[in-house]
């Protein structure tokens, strides 16, 4: 058979690798910043742009989509060509993919600090950027499938199975979850409301973890671990079983983010059970990674790169054990809304994603530059610092999270909350946050060592843009399945069929969970007293979303005595039917706000309190860790946007009266004036057109609708 000569294009791999490092520095430093901001509110430097509610989404987006995203593309652009013995399909598509993705990241960072956000975690970006992501993702897929179809190998390797599943699932998740009605160029309302929105969001959110942080990294692991160690993959059979079971089961697990919420019981049960069933398929990946190193353990001892892979894969095993554990309702009742969750995700992020990325970069760059790594010793130092960093990062959060949850739940013998003041439970966390920030600092330090080491390596080598290779052309394969080949082996040489099967596998769970929640009325029983927000409250809600309040405050009272005693009646599904987007939140750095406006409730505060508190929380309680929001009293409400917002809400099915958009501004002003008057009566002079007035109006609306039944009015 004649050998064909061709070359691998290393340019895109190199570009993505460098982008990974650049965004890594940005994302990790941003992480360190918010680790400090969470307990030192003045670390926002008094600027709205650098306040936790905005910098936290920048951090999550930067590390997930910029740092990890670019690393995924690095791995795919490198391994795909070599596994398929072909050049990437199109240089142009590669370029558009690369620069498009970087432009999206810049646009994301800028809009998020400016406060343009949809208000759904890990999907905060506004609709024009969402469209750009879709386009670039399709271009990436085009380039990937083009490459697969022009391959010189008969079959596609397990890494590529994972790349295919990643591509199709991320596309489905992103498109469905980002559906929205635009109000203006950078403002939209999500298509779904309340519980339905929460379900779609966490179907997306959980599977962003699954198909952005897990499956591409399994693909990466399956390429780099055998490649670096020179060992064969432990078990092909295990690859097949764990691949299909993982992608099929993962998609169902989203509701475990909403345990004890107002999500129907049957959905919660699916969340729990499918998470539990994920344990073995996840560990299948870990085992196939670790056991591939059988016979190479002495190499692991000497080589920092393999050590990073071992710690990374072990971290994957730990967090995929912890995941099912946290999906048991009894455990989740403690862990949810606390720092335990943050610790859990960072075992995965710092351990699994981080360590695999480091290992990959240390191995890849010297090869792209035809040189040796500048210093193996420094890589070793990085390994130890990063490992230590994970310990310092996670352990305090576990301790802090459990402590706080137990304090929330503690009653005195005569039936009162032992710690009725939320801030008392926060005080316990401050030392833990300090140690966590130190862990974060170590992790950043380690990464800077990597950057130094890599820059030195690049300086000592010369870039190999075209890597020459040769392989025989692909023989034409029999169309149908031959007798001797197994069904799966047949599928491995039919990539489009493979794509279709993978798509079916990932659609089933989502369809079974999402569709009935829309079609069957009993899932979200109507509460007649629940009415749409007034125009002023709607504007206030948009400010709540814009400032990222949901990053620290939940609006979801779980049916526990400890929560109904602290906050009031537990949350019902019918309450949030006009909430585009839902604002249940996932973390309580501050107290729940779902009953904030209930005058007869347990946490009600007058307008003047809110005014003072927004401007200076420490004035109300010096132990408060909430940042000051003085700009709310200066900035004016964008009153002219009101009719457009009402119109968009009506399109979404919110029952405002006919032609209400024409009356909306008038109503808004009247309500704002009455709040300003009340503030004036309490000695606070302010114009009624300020953002703070709208936000107060929203605060005072929270929880009011379902309590009107019990109050005389």
């Amino acid at each position: 058979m004649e050998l064909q000569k061709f070359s691998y294009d290393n340019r895109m791999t190199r570009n993505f690798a460098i982008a990974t490092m650049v965004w890594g520095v940005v994302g990790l430093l941003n992480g360190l910043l918010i680790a400090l901001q969470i307990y030192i509110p003045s670390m926002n430097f008094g600027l709205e742009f650098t306040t936790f509610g905005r910098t936290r989404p920048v951090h999550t987006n930067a590390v997930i989509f910029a740092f990890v995203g670019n690393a995924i593309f690095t791995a795919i652009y490198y391994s795909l060509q070599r596994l398929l013995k072909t050049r990437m399909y199109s240089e142009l598509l590669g370029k558009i993919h690369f620069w498009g993705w970087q432009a999206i990241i810049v646009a994301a960072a800028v809009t998020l600090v400016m406060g343009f956000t949809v208000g759904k975690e890990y999907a905060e970006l506004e609709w024009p950027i969402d469209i750009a992501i879709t386009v670039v993702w399709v271009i990436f897929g085009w380039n990937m499938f083009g490459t697969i179809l022009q391959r010189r190998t008969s079959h596609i390797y397990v890494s590529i199975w994972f790349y295919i599943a990643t591509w199709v699932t991320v596309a489905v998740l992103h498109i469905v979850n980002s559906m929205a009605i635009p109000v203006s160029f950078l403002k939209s309302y999500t298509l779904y409301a309340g519980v339905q929105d929460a379900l779609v969001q966490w179907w997306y959110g959980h599977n962003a973890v699954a198909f952005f942080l897990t499956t591409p990294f399994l693909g990466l692991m399956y390429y780099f671990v055998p490649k670096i160690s020179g060992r064969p993959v432990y078990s092909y059979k295990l690859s097949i079983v764990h691949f299909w079971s993982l992608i099929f089961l993962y998609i169902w697990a989203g509701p475990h983010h909403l345990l004890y919420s107002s999500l129907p019981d049957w959905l919660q049960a699916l969340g729990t059970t499918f998470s539990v069933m994920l344990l073995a398929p996840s560990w299948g990946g870990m085992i196939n990674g670790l056991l591939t190193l059988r016979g190479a353990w002495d190499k692991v001892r000497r080589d920092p790169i393999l050590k990073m892979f071992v710690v990374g894969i072990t971290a994957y095993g730990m967090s995929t054990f912890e995941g099912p554990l946290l999906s048991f309702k009894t455990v989740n009742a403690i862990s949810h809304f606390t720092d335990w969750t943050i610790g859990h995700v960072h075992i995965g992020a710092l351990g699994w994603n981080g360590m695999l990325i480091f290992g990959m970069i240390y191995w890849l760059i010297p090869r792209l530059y035809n040189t040796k790594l500048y210093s193996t010793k420094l890589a070793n130092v990085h390994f130890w610092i990063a490992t230590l960093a994970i310990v310092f990062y996670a352990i305090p959060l576990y301790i802090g999270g459990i402590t706080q949850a137990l304090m929330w739940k503690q009653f005195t013998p005569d039936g009162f909350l032992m710690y009725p003041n939320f801030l008392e439970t926060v005080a316990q966390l401050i030392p833990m946050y300090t140690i966590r920030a130190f862990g974060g600092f170590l992790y950043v330090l380690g990464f800077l060592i990597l950057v130094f080491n890599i820059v030195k390596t690049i300086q000592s080598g010369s870039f190999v843009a075209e890597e020459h290779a040769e392989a025989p052309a692909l023989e034409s394969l029999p169309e149908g399945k031959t007798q001797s080949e197994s069904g799966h082996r047949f599928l491995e040489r039919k990539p489009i069929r493979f794509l279709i099967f993978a798509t079916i596998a990932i659609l089933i769970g989502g369809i079974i969970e999402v569709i009935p929640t829309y079609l069957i009325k009993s899932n979200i029983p109507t509460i007649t007293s629940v009415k749409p927000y007034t125009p002023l409250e709607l504007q206030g809600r948009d400010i709540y979303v814009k400032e990222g309040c949901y990053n620290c405050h939940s609006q979801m009272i779980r049916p526990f005595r400890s929560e109904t005693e602290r906050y009031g009646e537990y949350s019902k599904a019918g309450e949030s039917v006009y909430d585009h987007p839902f604002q249940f939140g996932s973390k309580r750095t501050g107290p729940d706000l779902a009953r904030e406006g209930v005058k007869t409730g347990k946490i009600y505060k007058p307008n003047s309190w809110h005014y003072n508190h927004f401007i200076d929380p420490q004035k109300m309680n010096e132990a408060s860790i909430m940042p000051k929001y003085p700009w709310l009293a200066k900035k004016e409400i964008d009153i002219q946007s009101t009719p457009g917002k009402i119109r968009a809400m009506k399109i979404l099915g919110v029952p405002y009266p006919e032609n209400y958009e024409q009356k909306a501004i008038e109503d808004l002003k009247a309500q704002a004036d009455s709040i300003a008057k009340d503030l004036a009566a309490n000695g606070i002079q302010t114009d009624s057109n300020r953002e703070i007035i709208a936000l107060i109006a929203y605060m005072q609306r929270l929880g009011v609708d379902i309590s009107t039944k019990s109050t005389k009015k």
Partner: protein
Amino acid sequence: MSTNEDIQLKEPNKVNEEVDDVTKIKFFGGHEYDGIKELDNPLPPWLKYLFYVTIIFSISYLILLFVFKDDSIIQVKEYRKEVMAARAKTEVAVKEEAVKTAAAPMTEEQILAAGKAIYDKTCLVCHGKFGEGLVGPNFTDEYWIHGGRPEELKKVIIEGVLDKGMISYKSQMNNTQIDHVIGYILSLQGSNPPNQKAPQGVKN
């Protein structure tokens, strides 16, 4: 310095080997991707059984919910049960507590300390750290909006003044605690802290 260069440069064994030298496990014939081979290992049995166990658990869990509608999985029922159990328990505890307090009366100092602890948790966010008044009225001057006698304060704490933003604290403090905090509040009279809020209400 050289760590894995040697591996990289080494060509995959050209010999038609079928068995891995190290583990003596068979390779899958024809599976080779960029030098990566795959071994014919079965699934680890314990992993397979772990998978079966989780599947059996999940099916049972779902049957418990969908078929038997078990109370332990339906959260509203679970909640009602929790509240009932707590109510029964606290009734006993309240009686015991009453006996205990009657048996061991506190000194005035202890009362003030207990009252201050409650004040610092609950009251200060509106009435200021030293009772100087913030959103709520000043406790250190001689003026009272709803009266300054202990029973008048008690009424405010128990019922709240909803129109002014003072909520009812009857579900957050027991009777003894309310008495303690009133004792502390009244002890602030004339303490003259900085940043006092202007007098409100009528002079005592």
